[in-house]
C-alpha cells in the first residue's frame, strides 16, 4: 500500500516499466525512466543539501523536466512549490522569501526574471537545478547533464504521510499571496478518490492543461499515477490557440481532459472540433468556475460520446463534490453535485449553526483531502478552520470554504456565490482586495476599486477604477505596467479607468456595487449598439 506520492510511480515502474508515464509533444518518459529520473534528481538535491520538509521551487514552463521535478523533489522528502512561470519578479521574490526556498528547479529562459527578483532584495536561494551556470549568477548551478549522471536508486529518506508534499500559492486578500500546504496524505487521498470516481485505468491519457501552480494539476499527475496511466502535458502556447490545442488532443489520443470552462468554450468556438478525431476522449471534467449552460450544451452536442462532469472544491480541500451532466439536462445552472463519499459537508449560517435542510449557508467541509493550513499564516489558519464538537470527547475540524450553497432534496449542492470578495477569472481565483492593494501601493494613487463583470467569452473580467492624489501623475498604461510587475497576468484588470471621484455609500465607502452596475450598463449599451 502506497502512503507517499512518489511510491505511486515506483509501483507502476516495477509492474509496467515501459508504459508511458508522461508525454510532451514528441518527447515521452516511461514509468521506469520517470522513476529513475526522479531518483537521480532526488539524490542530486540531497547532495546539494536538501533535507526532509525543505521546500524546493519549480519555476519553468511545463515540460518533461517539470514532471521529473515534481517526483524528484518528493522522493527526497521535500515539498515542491510550483511558481507561476509567468509571475512578475516581485511576486516571484515574495514567494521565494515567504516559503524559504533555497533550491529551485528552473531553466535558462527564466534566469533574467530571477535576476530581477534578486535585485529587489536578498533571496534565500542557494542552488539552481537546470541552468548550466555559464552566466554569472550568485547561485550554484547544477545542469541536467549532472542530474542524469546521479544514482538512479531511491535515496534513503525518512518521510511519513503527514509530511508536507506541496505548497500552492494563491491570491490573498491582504495583498500578498498565501501558500496552501498539502501533505502526502491529503494529496494521495484526493488522487485515490479521483482515480476511483473517474474509473481511471492504465490505458487512459490525461491531459495536463493547468499550470502546476493551479490545483487542477494534482488530478492530472497524481490521479493518473494511481491508475498507472499517462499524463499528456499541454504546453502553455497550445492552451492559447484553440485549433492547435484541439490538434494536440487528437494527436495525443487524450482520453480524460480536466480544464476550466473558458478553455472549453475556446475549443468549442475556435477549435475546429468537427475536423479533429477526438474518438479517444471519454471524459471532460471542468472546474474552477460555473460553465455558462448555453456553451456547455453546445459542447455536449458537439461531442456526444464524451461524459461531462462538473467538479467543485477550493484548492484547500481539493475536489469534494462532483456532478455528472445528463445529456439533456435542463435549467440555467448546473449543480456542483453531492459531497464525495470520503468527505462530509456541513452548511452553516453566520453564527456557525447548521441551517435547516434546503436553506442556504456557507459550506464547511471535513475531508482527508484537506490542507494542513496556510504556510506561516496563523491568522488565516484561525479563520479557515471550524471546530465542531461531535462527541463530548471528540472535536472535528472543518474547512470554511467561504462559498454559499444550498443542498437540494437529492443531496446535490447548488453553488450560490461567495461570502467575500473572491472572484474567478478563467478558473483562477482572485481576491479583489489584493488587486486593489497593489494599485493603492502606487505613489500617485489615492483610492482604487476593482470589480468583476461578465465577459462575452463565458468567464469574467476585472475592471479597475482609480482616483489620483492631488499632484499625483500616472496614466492608464503606467498603472497597468506597475501592476504587471506585481501581479500575475490573470489578475490584471482588462479595463482601468481614471476617475475624478468615486460614488459613495451612505457610510462614505466607495460604492463598488454602483461602479459595477455602471460598467454593466455601458457594456449592455455597447452590445445593443446604442
Amino acid at each position, binding site marked *: 500500500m502506497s502512503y507517499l506520492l512518489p511510491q505511486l510511480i515506483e509501483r507502476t515502474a516495477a509492474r509496467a516499466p515501459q508504459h508511458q508515464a508522461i508525454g510532451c509533444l514528441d518527447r515521452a518518459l516511461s514509468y521506469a525512466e520517470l522513476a529513475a529520473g526522479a531518483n537521480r534528481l532526488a539524490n542530486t538535491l540531497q547532495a546539494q543539501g536538501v533535507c526532509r520538509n525543505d521546500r524546493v521551487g519549480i519555476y519553468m514552463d511545463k515540460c518533461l523536466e517539470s514532471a521529473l521535478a515534481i517526483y524528484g523533489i518528493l522522493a527526497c522528502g521535500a515539498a515542491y512549490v510550483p511558481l507561476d512561470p509567468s509571475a512578475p519578479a516581485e511576486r516571484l521574490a515574495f514567494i521565494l522569501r515567504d516559503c524559504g526556498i533555497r533550491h529551485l528547479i528552473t531553466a535558462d529562459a527564466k534566469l533574467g526574471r530571477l535576476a530581477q527578483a534578486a535585485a529587489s532584495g536578498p533571496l534565500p536561494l542557494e542552488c539552481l537545478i537546470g541552468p548550466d551556470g555559464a552566466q554569472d549568477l550568485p547561485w550554484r548551478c547544477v545542469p541536467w547533464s549532472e542530474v542524469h549522471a546521479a544514482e538512479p536508486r531511491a535515496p534513503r529518506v525518512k518521510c511519513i504521510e503527514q509530511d508536507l508534499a506541496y505548497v500552492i500559492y494563491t491570491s490573498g486578500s491582504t495583498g500578498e499571496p498565501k501558500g496552501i500546504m498539502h501533505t502526502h496524505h491529503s494529496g494521495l487521498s484526493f488522487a485515490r478518490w479521483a482515480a476511483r470516481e473517474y474509473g481511471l485505468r492504465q490505458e487512459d491519457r490525461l491531459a495536463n492543461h493547468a499550470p502546476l501552480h493551479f490545483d487542477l494539476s494534482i488530478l492530472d499527475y497524481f490521479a493518473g499515477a494511481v491508475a498507472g496511466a499517462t499524463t499528456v502535458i499541454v504546453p502553455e502556447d497550445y492552451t492559447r490557440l484553440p*485549433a492547435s490545442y484541439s490538434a494536440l488532443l487528437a494527436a495525443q489520443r487524450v482520453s480524460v481532459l480536466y480544464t476550466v470552462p473558458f478553455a472549453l468554450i475556446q475549443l468549442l468556438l475556435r477549435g475546429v472540433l468537427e475536423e479533429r478525431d477526438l474518438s479517444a476522449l471519454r471524459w471532460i471534467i471542468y472546474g474552477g468556475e460555473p460553465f455558462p449552460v448555453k456553451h456547455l450544451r453546445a459542447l455536449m452536442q458537439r461531442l456526444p460520446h464524451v461524459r461531462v462532469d462538473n467538479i467543485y472544491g477550493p484548492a484547500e480541500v481539493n475536489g469534494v463534490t462532483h456532478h455528472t451532466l445528463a445529456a439533456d439536462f435542463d435549467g440555467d445552472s448546473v449543480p456542483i453535485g453531492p459531497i464525495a463519499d470520503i468527505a462530509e459537508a456541513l452548511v452553516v449560517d453566520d453564527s456557525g449553526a447548521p441551517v435547516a435542510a434546503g436553506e442556504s449557508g456557507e459550506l464547511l467541509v471535513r475531508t482527508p483531502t484537506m490542507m494542513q493550513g496556510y504556510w506561516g499564516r496563523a491568522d488565516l489558519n484561525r479563520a479557515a478552520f471550524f471546530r465542531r464538537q461531535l462527541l463530548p470527547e471528540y472535536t472535528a475540524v472543518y474547512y470554511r470554504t467561504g462559498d454559499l450553497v444550498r443542498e437540494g432534496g437529492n443531496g446535490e449542492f447548488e453553488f450560490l456565490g461567495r461570502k467575500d470578495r473572491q472572484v474567478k477569472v478563467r478558473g483562477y481565483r482572485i481576491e479583489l482586495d489584493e488587486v486593489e492593494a497593489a494599485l493603492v501601493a502606487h505613489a500617485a494613487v489615492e483610492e482604487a476599486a476593482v470589480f468583476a463583470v461578465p465577459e462575452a467569452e463565458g468567464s469574467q473580467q476585472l475592471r479597475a477604477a482609480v482616483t489620483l492624489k492631488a499632484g499625483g501623475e500616472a496614466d492608464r498604461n503606467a498603472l497597468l505596467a506597475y501592476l504587471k510587475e506585481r501581479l500575475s497576468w490573470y489578475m490584471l484588470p482588462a479595463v482601468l479607468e481614471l476617475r475624478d471621484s468615486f460614488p459613495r455609500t451612505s457610510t462614505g465607502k466607495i460604492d463598488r456595487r454602483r461602479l459595477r452596475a455602471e460598467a454593466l450598463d455601458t457594456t449592455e449599451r455597447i452590445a445593443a449598439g446604442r
Partner: protein
Amino acid sequence: MQFTQSSIGDTLIEYVSEELLSGQTRVGPDDNLLSEGMVDSLGMLRLVGFIEESFGFKVPPQDFVIENFRSVGVLSDYLQRRLADAGQVSSDA
C-alpha cells in the same frame, strides 16, 4: 482596401506593443508572442478582433494556430498571403 507589406507589419507591431503589452515593451518581429508574460489567451482573441477590424479579414478558426501567431513576423507573412489571395496587398515599391 489596399495594404503594403510593411504597413501590415508596422500596424501589428504598434497594436501588440501599445495595446496588448501596455506600451511597456516594443515587440520585435521575431519575438515569441506565446512565451510567458507576453500575450495571454484573451490577448490572442483581442489580436484576432483587431486584425478583423483593421484589415477587414476574418481569420478562419483553422488558421488560428501557433504556426501563424507565434510572432508578429510569421503573422504578417500569413496575413500578406491571405490578403494577397484577396487582391488586397500591393508591393512596398
